[in-house]
């Protein structure tokens, strides 16, 4: 019954928002106000013998009808070319330019331009299955029909803060203009821009004729980063068996230092076949082991769906530490689980820190995952780590056990726990309480600055 009701509610809300969208597209703010007035006048003036609202109804109807008729002819045609930067960052204005060419014969002034953004509305399954933060506190009627849920999901789907309409300079026929635009992303990940909307108001300024110019682009939005005090991670240089290439955990070591006789246990792929042919005995290639500092940044992505905000804060914290932890001669491993375990290494000619941020831009919350997947992967890797920064979403027994085991392997640790509760039992970090930090999602900037003190 509840699902049946919510399905109907979903359809109703979808229709309503589609209507609102079309209304906003075709009518200017003044036009929308007058449209509301028209509706009110129609209701109030239903009995023309009681009052004069029918006169207001007549006036507003004619105003809006004429404005609508005057805005039937769309402006254009136009050709548009958008030049986007490689990256944008959450909450930071992204400036870009586009060239708009008037390929028609109309001489246009007062044209307005706006980005067409992806539809932020949730699909039916998401609407039915998602529980939003604070849903249990909303009033029963709203909870029954799911409006707060719809609103929250739509907000989540809005990847850009409301883009303002940009007034274009005069555009004579067959001429083009370069225009600077700006958008402020509100979510990390890929932002799919659909196209641009060019509109023109009629003489009264109530309705507008709209032409949509398809122009699809994808812009990668990096996580928001905060200033972090300079970091001097503890720990010493560690043996990296097999050298730099092995350190990145991909392919064979390439620091070749010579040949030697085969010893039992040597891998067959290290056999140097030409030398065996020449000498008649098995000879293997020998690679140089290396010692250097290797930091690890571990991001916990296991939490309930309602803790989306905390997870976003954790990603921001991890992103904020990418640059400070990246020393000139050291490696930085970024490890997290997003469907599977990922380990990306930057430094010493491997991936750049920008690459790590790109990966952080796309990491997703794992509401049904098990933290042990991440802890196992890190522990296998632990002997090579000089130090480790853990960004955790909880401080439960499982995570404390993980920290305990890491410390037993003599890996220096710094732990950042994202959450709202301020009291934190240090547990395995009891002897180093200064290395355990609790950060609140809505006070990240202050919290991160305090990490340096």
């Amino acid at each position: 019954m509840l699902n049946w009701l919510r399905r109907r509610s979903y359809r109703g809300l979808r229709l309503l928002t589609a209507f609102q969208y079309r209304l906003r597209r075709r009518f200017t703010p003044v036009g929308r106000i007058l449209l509301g007035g028209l509706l009110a006048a129609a209701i109030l003036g239903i009995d023309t013998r009681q009052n004069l609202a029918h006169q207001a109804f007549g006036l507003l109807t004619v105003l809006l009808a004429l404005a609508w008729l005057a805005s039937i002819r769309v402006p254009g045609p136009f050709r548009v070319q958008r030049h986007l930067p490689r990256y944008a960052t959450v909450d930071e204005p992204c400036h870009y330019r586009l060239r708009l060419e008037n390929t028609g014969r109309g001489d246009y002034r007062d044209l307005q331009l706006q980005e067409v953004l992806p539809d932020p509305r949730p699909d039916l399954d998401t609407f039915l299955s998602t529980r939003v933060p604070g849903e249990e506190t909303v009033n029963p009627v709203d909870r029954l029909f799911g409006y707060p849920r719809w609103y929250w999901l739509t907000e989540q789907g809005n990847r850009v803060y409301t883009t303002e309409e940009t007034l274009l300079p005069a555009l004579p026929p067959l001429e083009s203009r370069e225009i600077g635009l700006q958008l402020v992303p509100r979510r990390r990940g890929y932002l799919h821009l659909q196209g641009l909307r060019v509109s023109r108001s009629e003489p009264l300024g109530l309705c507008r004729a709209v032409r949509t110019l398809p122009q699809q682009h994808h812009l990668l939005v990096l996580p928001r980063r905060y200033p972090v005090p300079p970091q001097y991670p503890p720990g010493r240089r560690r043996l990296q068996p097999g050298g730099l290439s092995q350190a990145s955990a991909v392919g064979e070591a390439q620091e070749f230092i010579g040949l030697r006789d085969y010893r039992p246990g040597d891998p067959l792929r290290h056999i140097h076949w030409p030398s065996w042919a020449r000498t008649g005995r098995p000879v293997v290639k020998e690679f140089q082991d290396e010692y250097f500092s290797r930091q690890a940044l571990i991001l916990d992505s296991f939490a309930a769906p309602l803790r989306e905000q905390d997870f976003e804060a954790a990603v921001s914290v991890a992103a904020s530490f990418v640059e400070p932890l990246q020393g000139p001669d050291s490696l930085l491993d970024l490890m997290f689980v997003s469907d599977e375990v990922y380990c990306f290494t930057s430094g010493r000619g491997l991936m750049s820190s920008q690459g790590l941020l790109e990966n952080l831009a796309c990491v997703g919350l794992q509401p049904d995952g098990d933290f042990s997947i991440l802890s196992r992967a890190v522990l296998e890797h632990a002997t090579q780590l000089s130090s480790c920064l853990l960004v955790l979403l909880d401080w439960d027994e499982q995570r404390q056990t993980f920290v305990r085991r890491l410390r037993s392997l003599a890996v220096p640790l710094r732990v950042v726990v994202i959450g709202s509760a301020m009291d934190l039992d240090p547990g395995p970090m009891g002897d180093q309480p200064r290395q355990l930090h609790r950060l609140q999602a809505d006070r990240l900037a202050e919290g991160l600055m305090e990490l340096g003190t």
Partner: protein
Amino acid sequence: MKIPPLLLGGVMLFWGWQSGMLWLGALLGTTLELERRLPWHWELKLRDRQRIADLCMLLFILAALYFYFIQSHTGSAILSLIQWTPVLLAPLMLAQLYGRRPGMEPSVLFLSRRGQKTRDTPLLDLRPPYVLACLLAAAVVDPSDQVYYPALAGFVAWMLWPARPKRTRLWIWLITLCFTLTLGFGLGKAVHWTQQELEQAVTDWLSERMFGPRDPYRSRTAIGYVGELKGSEDIVLRVQAEQALDRPLLLRSASYNRYLSDSWYARPSGFTSLSQSERGWRLYPGLEQGKLAQISMELSEGSGLLHLPIDTHVVDGLEAARLSRNDMGTIKVQEGPELAHYQVRYGLQATPDPAPGDVDLSIPRQERAAVSRVAAQLGLHEIPPHAVLHRIASLFEQQFRYSLQLWQPHPGRTPLAEFLLHQRSGHCEYFASAAVLLLRYTGIPARYANGWSVQEYSPLEESYIVRERHAHAWVTAYIDGRWIDFDPTPPDWNQLEETERPWWSQVHDLLAKLRYEFLKARWQEKDDAATYMAWLLIPLAILLGWRIARRSSIHVLSGVESPRSTIGHTTPFHPVELSLAKQGHPRPQHLTLGEWLEGLEQEHVPGIAELCPAVELQYRLQFDPKGISAAQLQQLHTLILQWLRRYA
């Protein structure tokens, strides 16, 4: 959206003038416009704004209740509420204007959005809808008003002027607007005319199709229908008689004199207004005494047919603008209350109905054979009129049966002929119609009457009650120079219907009683109710205002601009930051002013210690909710100027 200066004040003034409350309009308009001139403003938190919105909502509810109780019609109450909208919304408007805010958050206006983040949501500017609300509220005036449209057109043009595209030339804009306004005036008139025509057409149609039984000119009967008739238990009338009724009292709604195709018609004739004296509405001048009965009934929209005993000569206590009567004695009430409560004097055997005409003796050709056959069997031509009545009543009582089961007439026979000659069972409409035609056949003028039969006493109501199933049809016969009631239906008809009473009727009656008491409180004690409501509203409003003032943290900030508007390059301290940046000490974005200066002092940058008093004032300017005085602001500027002269 830009709102031109003085538009809000002008609209409020217009509203006050139209509503007859010029002083209130002028007061509110001045208050709304004065905000631009005042050097101070209110510092309202989100919670305060939400409380003010709640206050407006509560005021709306209280005003709706108040108008509902004091106005005679629900429609008038709604119109009064709309007329007062500008006053009821004024607190919210003032909160926006005096809070120097561009608009209100959606969470202020919509309860569903409470508790959600408001940081990124666009604000809703209340000024344009408020202007429109005032203009619509000003429309609640006498429809003959000639000022409204020109003023409305002027205000709309004033509102549209700043919103026009820059490319639009003035003359194009003016011509378009004039054309639109002229066309709009025509459309308004057309709407008015169309509504009148449509209303007339719909009224005719409804009278034809739906309100047949209470149409003064036509009564559709269930004669000829097949199936079962069921009357509801709804109570439609309450009658308090002086003394207990020894036989059912018949309250007539309307009379008809033409029978055609199973329906009764009355020749359309105009209604004549009745005069009202100090002693009530006089239906039969010259008569004063008689039996007294008090009747309560609901009138839809204050209009309808009045249910009265046929020999009523005075109707008293009915608060209606007009009472009128047609040739058939049907009384119509107009512009009355929704709950009519009136006393009637009756029983002096003097009926005010006009004398009969030829039509009161006519018998349809197709019914004549059956009627003549029955009349011949009864020998009606040979006996005096009173004996005719008696013989017809005896025939129906002894040889006919009352039944709500409707039968299918034999092909080729009319339903009335089938009733008289074959089935011999039917409901009151059959008996009444047959009796009218039989009486006419014997030369006695007769009419078909419908209305209600008062016979059930309710201890709960302490009065007689008339249910919908007590709807009845009977005959008015003209005998000895006056019209008298003659009920030919066998007297057991009500007992038969009583047996089919549902088990839940007692609960139904209780609910009906509650509803009646509510309506009585609303309509009969309205002066007291209005006074009571008004006195109740005053302490409530005071209590609300006090609670808001006590809980809110509204501060009046004076002397300096809002701290929120003094960020970045507009802060007095900004030149110091620029100067130090030029000296190679730029302020990192993540450091507070104090932390930054403290660091510089440790680096022994000259002059930093002297900035301490200025830093303290700057912090107070930015973060103290009360701000700083003009003198302190001047002191801050002086300190910074002195420092710049020395160290910049």
